[in-house]
């Protein structure tokens, strides 16, 4: 029993890290642009399908590098021509816009690549478990965690050490002042959106490696990401990371004791956090 719980905690951390990857992208966009990107799951699917399409030509590793970048480019285009047009208006409009885009993305991927699940293959040596007892630690999942750590670490570096990151963080706190100080807010938001979508595309490629590749592959990930953001505190990337890991573990442990509540448990956690600390675990007070 102890072993079962331990296994599910470890497994939950892996799933949680994946939620976090998705949630951090969402959180970046939400903090700077006040946009809830419902189409995030759609971008995730596009990333996965692009990687699948490119793999025969440039291999798995090529796809892993190129597909998220192409997805990010798509993100930049969508931001420039659609989403940027609703900045400054009631947040309602950006919600509806991305909500509609989510429909189009799901249906579009189905139209282009078909409804049939596609077999996306990862290199054989990543496929098998590392050890017989810890069978859920496959080479691929360990690699996935490694990559998430690298990318999130890189993101934290960008956010704290580069001019772009400082501007994004400053913009999150007070966009008007940043604008007055001569920063081109349009470009800043565009790039920030691109970074968020890059993370979604990467999450898509990683997801396709262990799941079937389907148009709805991103749909079930968006809600856990929201909850991760709320629990962690909007505006805090560390908080979002923490939130993702927490709900991953909570779902895993609940699956052992009360399987029918596996999906609901994270919402209960969210309610608890809202009651005790409305701004989220690491969120700054007074922001909302």
């Amino acid at each position, binding site marked *: 029993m102890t072993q079962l719980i331990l296994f599910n905690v470890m497994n939950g951390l892996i799933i949680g890290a994946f939620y976090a990857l998705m949630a951090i992208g969402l959180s970046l966009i939400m903090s700077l642009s006040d946009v809830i990107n419902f189409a995030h799951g759609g971008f995730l699917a596009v990333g996965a399908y692009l990687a699948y399409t490119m793999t025969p030509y440039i291999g798995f590793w090529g796809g892993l590098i190129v597909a998220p970048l192409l997805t990010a480019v798509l993100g930049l285009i969508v931001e420039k021509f659609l989403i940027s047009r609703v900045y400054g208006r009631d947040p309602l409009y950006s919600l509806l816009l991305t909500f509609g885009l989510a*429909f189009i993305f*799901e249906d579009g991927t189905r*139209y282009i690549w078909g409804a049939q699940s596609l077999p996306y293959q990862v290199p054989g040596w990543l496929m098998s478990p590392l050890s017989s007892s810890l069978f859920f630690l496959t080479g691929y999942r360990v690699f996935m965690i490694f990559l998430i750590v690298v990318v999130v670490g890189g993101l934290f570096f960008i956010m704290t050490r580069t001019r772009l990151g400082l501007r994004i963080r400053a913009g999150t706190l007070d966009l008007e002042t940043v604008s007055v100080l001569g920063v081109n807010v349009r470009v800043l938001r565009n790039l920030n959106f691109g970074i968020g979508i890059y993370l979604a595309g990467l999450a898509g490629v990683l997801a396709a490696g262990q799941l079937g590749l389907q148009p709805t592959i991103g749909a079930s990930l968006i*809600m856990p990401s929201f909850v991760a953001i709320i629990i962690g505190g909007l505006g805090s990337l560390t908080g979002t990371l923490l939130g993702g890991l927490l709900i991953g573990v909570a779902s895993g442990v609940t699956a052992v004791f009360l399987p029918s509540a596996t999906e609901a448990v994270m919402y209960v956690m969210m309610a608890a956090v809202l009651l005790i600390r409305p701004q989220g675990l690491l969120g700054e007070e007074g922001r*909302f």
Partner: protein
Amino acid sequence: MGNLDLRKQSTNLIVCALLLTLPFWIDHVGSYIQLGTQIVVMALAAMALNFLLGYTGVLSFGHAAYFGLGAYGTGMTIRYLLPSTGVGILVGTLVGALAAAVIGPMIVRLRGVYFAMVTIAFGQVFYFIAFRWNDVTGGDDGLTNWKRMPIDLGFTTVDIQHNATAFYYFVLVIFAVAVALMAFLLRSPFGRTLIAIRENERRARFMGVNVNFHIWMSWVISCTFMALAGSLSSLLNNFVDPRSLFWTQSGTFVIMCVMGGMRSFWGPLVGAAIFVALQDYLSSATPNWQSFVGLVFVIVVLFFPRGVMGIFRRKATE
């Protein structure tokens, strides 16, 4: 000013006339009575949401939960407790109101996208309860084996069970009462305060308005009428399933409001009519209907943010 009143009166008249005569012409425009009932139900839902969205300026993206709670409350009452349509509606509506009243205090402090996100997430709790508690709710299969019951008025019985037109008018009567109540509330000082909050929350606060309490009230009222709409929807289908609580359903309610015009009393009704009819048509016409529905969202947001009624109004003022 007199001109404006005249315009308002004539809009009211047109809406009433169209709704009252709907069973007589809907077949002739290539549609069917159930779709008409569906439109009235969705219109009630959209107008209920607009009470909060359009008149209080608070962005909820989780209203489907209360729609679904009303539906389950009604279905489960008729199935397990008492085979009475009236009691079913009452219980369903109360369940929705109660849930909203309890959740309200946790969210009234939040604003903007954060409010939207939290309402979605709370809505999902109810979705998963309906989805996974098989023994009681029927789970994914939905709640079946119950039917709306004829209404016994004492002197006569209205057979809403078999007569689709009778059911339409039954729904319309409830719709009329609910809408009149909402209109009354919006005209009252309470309603004026809500609009004041929408226009400038800080000023309202400085004027001594208890903003959070008013938002809570508005939220509960809105969710209550939402539950009533959900209750009617379950009676229309003789069926409830968890997807009526799913968060994407909330998005369709919001688009109905925006599409018709959030600043107009009848706007959500117009939006609901257009959206329901359009979705009904598209989903028969093309397997890629999702893309077209998505496109409708994008077009409305980019080109018609004030909705249909907004366009009319601008034309009228020009």
